[in-house]
């Protein structure tokens, strides 16, 4: 892992890239680059120029931008005659006073330009001459400016991590620097900071609103996609990315989760190189691996008490009150307040004001929080991220695909997308061909685990024939199970049909249902219908549900509805499908009635349903549009929902519900992290659209 990190930092640290590499690889931030360059080029520095501050979080491309500007000045023949761009190092630990800034500037100037060769000798003699720091600083600056004027040169100083230097200056030095910057036309500062410096907004501070600030925001959707594509081109099409829907959804999911940080997007590209057909969870793990040293360092820098507080807030993910933090850490509230203030000041934690005295606190950098949960969280905390990722991946994919789904009942789970039958508008909206697959492990779990140890071992050693042999030799494994194993796991259709029919001969209604589903998958409608009917006649209620959907697919809407209604008598999944049917047919009153029925009958405890993000999404959005936020709130907080962890599984939907209940719960929605905001906004916009429709 370490080597990956090292290679990441070496490859992606802009200072380690050659001028040519950096210029070639500069494919995003073009607009802000052009604007800043125009600012620089248009300023003849006759009068003191506008000083600029670029503000952006870690990894947003500040250093690259500063270097790119420097290189552009160097190659601009109208500018390079008189303007000298100087770039300071990332960390300038030695600059703790104003005179040190000038001393360091002269060192860099000498390194960069032979015209100023003897300046540091003259500086040294001034150091002997002026013992008072103030006087020495003034003398240094005088010498610097007279030398610049004598040589007809002007300086543009690119200072990265400006906050580290600036914070060390005394108030007196700040006044002096402001005066210099306001009155000297010989130097211009283009600085960059990770954090928002309070001084620049403090009415009483000399630097109050002094800089023209440019913000480097996270990449938007188009920029992120274009960055990954361009990186691929620069890498001679190593990945040969076409940016199909699936890839776009992967990129979009990561962009939203990482806040559009360029550094993470670059890591994302690395995951494409290694794993073109991966998924959001693998992408996230890869990015976290690359980013880990930066975040670990951040945690290590905190005191023990602060670490404990950050740990508590991070593991909660949502914002917490000081009171709650105090309870969980068992630290005195006074201590908590003091430490929280410090953490807020250092921008590790953000304070969210509520309408009570108990304000909320959350981790400022949201991706740091996600890293922390994945790195230090227990399984249930990691699971929340996985659910979130899955939701996001589907949401982003959904936005791109504009598809919707009907849920089909299958033995013990999963839904089925009817795909390319193209008979109804539901079907036409579906693109992907999802096939119901049960895992080998799930089948085995039906039975006694110990007895199947041998089969399992074969299975885990990928000795599939041996596994099947072992299973067939065991009396307890019935025909139905063998049929399912052959169908779902080994794709041996003939054997599957043989065993399922054997099960039917034994009057097993589930086998009838399964064979019906088998033929559904094979798109053999009449056989599917026959076996599903048979299953229904033998009391397998879920068969009505699938029969209903089959008929809908075949365009037999009346019959389809009738079957769904029959399914709805016994099954909450049937109720949900009936609601969806009415919803799709714009019979909104009935849709609302059946959605509420499904909820009342515990549809949120149905594993098929909660595995289907889109169905829950559609239901929630519709009911919100129908003004049923209170009912939704009740159903998301009842016992069934708690057991099924509905709030955790569908955090974005939960926040959407809370957004509609701000009057009743004014502080609950405030707990949400910014990584949810963009998607929540889209959800609320969809609800608004729905409201107009219904």
């Amino acid at each position, binding site marked *: 892992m370490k080597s990956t990190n090292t290679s990441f930092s070496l490859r992606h640290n802009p200072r380690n890239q050659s001028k040519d590499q950096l210029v070639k690889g500069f494919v995003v931030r073009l*607009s802000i680059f052009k*604007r800043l360059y125009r600012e620089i080029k*248009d300023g003849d520095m*006759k*009068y*003191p*120029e*506008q*000083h600029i501050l670029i503000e952006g979080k870690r990894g947003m491309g500040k250093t690259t931008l500063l270097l790119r500007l420097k290189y552009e000045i160097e190659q601009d023949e109208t500018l390079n005659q008189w303007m000298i761009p100087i770039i300071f190092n990332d960390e300038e630990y030695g600059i703790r006073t104003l005179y040190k800034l000038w001393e360091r500037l002269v060192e860099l100037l000498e390194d960069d330009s032979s015209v100023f060769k003897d300046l540091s000798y003259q500086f040294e003699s001034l150091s002997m001459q002026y013992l008072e720091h103030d006087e020495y600083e003034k003398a240094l600056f005088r010498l610097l400016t007279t030398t610049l004027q004598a040589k007809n040169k002007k300086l543009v100083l690119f200072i990265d991590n400006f906050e580290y230097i600036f914070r060390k200056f005394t108030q*007196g030095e700040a*006044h*002096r620097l*402001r*005066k210099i*910057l*306001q*009155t000297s036309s010989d130097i211009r500062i283009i600085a960059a900071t990770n954090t*928002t410096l*309070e001084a620049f*907004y*403090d*009415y*009483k501070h*000399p630097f*109050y*609103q*002094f*800089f*023209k*600030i440019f*913000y480097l925001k996270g990449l938007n959707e188009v920029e992120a996609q274009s960055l990954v594509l361009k990186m691929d081109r620069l890498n001679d099409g190593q990945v040969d990315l076409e940016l199909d829907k699936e890839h776009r959804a992967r990129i979009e999911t990561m962009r939203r989760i990482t806040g559009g940080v360029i550094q993470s997007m670059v890591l994302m590209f690395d995951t494409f190189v290694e794993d073109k057909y991966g998924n959001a969870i693998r992408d996230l793990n890869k990015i976290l691996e690359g980013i880990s040293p930066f975040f670990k360092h951040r945690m290590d820098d905190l005191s023990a008490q602060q670490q404990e507080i950050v740990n508590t807030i991070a593991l909660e993910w949502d914002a917490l009150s000081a009171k709650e933090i105090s309870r969980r850490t068992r630290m005195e509230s006074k201590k908590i307040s003091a430490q929280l203030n410090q953490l807020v000041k250092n921008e590790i934690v953000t304070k969210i*004001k*509520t*309408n009570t005295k108990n304000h909320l606190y959350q981790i400022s950098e949201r991706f740091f929080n996600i890293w922390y949960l994945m790195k230090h969280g227990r399984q249930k905390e990691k699971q929340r991220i996985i659910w979130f990722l899955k939701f996001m991946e589907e949401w982003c994919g959904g936005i791109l695909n504009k598809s919707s789904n009907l849920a089909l009942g299958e033995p013990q789970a999963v839904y089925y997308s009817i795909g390319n039958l193209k008979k109804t508008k539901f079907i036409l909206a579906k693109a992907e061909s999802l096939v119901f697959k049960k895992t080998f492990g799930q089948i085995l779990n039906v039975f006694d685990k110990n007895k199947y140890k041998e089969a399992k071992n074969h299975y885990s050693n990928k000795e599939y024939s041996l596994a099947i042999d072992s299973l067939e030799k065991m009396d307890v494994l019935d025909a139905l199970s063998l049929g399912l194993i052959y169908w779902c796991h080994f794709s041996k259709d003939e054997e599957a049909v043989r065993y399922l029919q054997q099960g039917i001969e034994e009057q097993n209604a589930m086998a009838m249902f399964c064979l019906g589903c088998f033929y559904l998958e094979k798109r053999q409608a009449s056989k599917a219908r026959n076996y599903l009917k048979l299953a229904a006649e033998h009391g397998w209620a879920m068969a009505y549900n699938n029969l209903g959907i089959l008929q809908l697919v075949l365009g037999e809407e009346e019959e389809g509805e009738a079957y769904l209604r029959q399914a709805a008598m016994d099954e909450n999944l049937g109720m949900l499908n009936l609601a969806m049917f009415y919803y799709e047919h714009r019979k909104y009153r009935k849709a609302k009635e059946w959605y509420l029925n499904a909820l009342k009958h515990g549809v949120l405890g149905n594993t098929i349903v909660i595995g289907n993000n889109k169905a829950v999404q559609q239901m929630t959005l519709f009911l919100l549009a129908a003004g049923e936020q209170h009912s939704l709130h009740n159903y998301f907080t009842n016992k069934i929902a708690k057991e099924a962890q509905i709030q955790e599984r569908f955090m974005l939907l939960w926040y959407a519900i809370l957004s509609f209940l701000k009057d009743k719960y004014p502080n609950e929605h405030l707990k949400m992290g910014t990584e949810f905001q963009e998607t929540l906004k889209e959800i609320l916009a969809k609800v608004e659209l729905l409201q107009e429709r219904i």
Partner: protein
Amino acid sequence: MKNIVGQIPRGDNFYPREYIINKIYRRLDSGSHIFLSAPRRSGKTSIMRYLEDNPKENYIFLYANVEDAEEPETYFMMLSELLLDSNAIGQLHRFSKKSRNKFAEFVDSVKSIKVWDLVEVHATEKVKPKYSEEFEKLMTNLDGSDPIVVLLVDEFPIALERISKKYGKEAAQKFLHVNRRIRQISDGGIRFIYTGSIGLPHITKKLNATAAVNDLNIVEVPPLTYKEALDFSAKLLDYYQVNYNEDIIPYLLEKLKWLMPFYIQLVIQMLIDEYDLCHESIGQKDIDKVFEKTSTHRNNIYFENYYSRLDKSLNLEEAKLAKTILSTIAKENEVSVETFDDKTAYSLLEMLEFDGYINSSGGKYRFNSPILQLWWLKCVR
């Protein structure tokens, strides 16, 4: 015209504000010394620099920023050096013989002070000459018929505050009185225009020395007039080649209400950013969007400071009352002057008005900036 924020716009980038410039000249013509008063980011310094760069006939303006002076002698050294290095010395032929002699004496004396520490003259001279004294000497008997030299002293209240901090209240009072004496004896030869990012009346009140500045003629820098603001906004947008519908500037100004250049620039900057992002003609919707943005998230720290400085500069009770007053005005949009009639409230309202939160006209208090008002409504609980 570039959209310059924080830095002083000079040359073509300064938006000439005729009304205020003419007002200043009228006061100078009548022999007054001036204190330019306005909240920060109102364009006080750029007005000074405009005067310096474009003097009317018979005027020589010299600009000094004194914010890094923390002792009286340094302050006078700065003013002396300013005179010494300035083109006033180069234009001595325009002065009367008497004044020329005075300047010549002054130049010699200042030079002698400059070399005092470097050359060992202590044996022959008993007491080190002082910049303040030499400066004062120059002030006396300058001929009133000479060209008028106006010293533009920027950040004077900061220098005063620093002197007070370092040497105490008495030293600061003394410094104020020396300055007053100098003004009184200048007899029209040299005039002063002071300004600063913190209020001089506020500091002199704290120093119990309001009498030492009551000779200053206070000139308020008002917001732009509607006509000026229209022109100013168009010039900024045109410089950045932003396409926009004709009706957006009046719409923007209507929303802004308080037409201080900084607030106009802040919104225009965001419109430029918006245009840069989508390259579509800017319309009223974009203005609404930008206003929404200004009062949220990123600008929080900016507005947060308006909130938190109440806690810093007032005691607990006063801060609470000030917040209530502001919340009431924010909610009601405008509140009658009589609404808050107790003594504490009155002095708080005065402070809030001076610090740029609110204004009072027509017997009503209003927020200066609707952006701040919106933020206050949304975020202050």
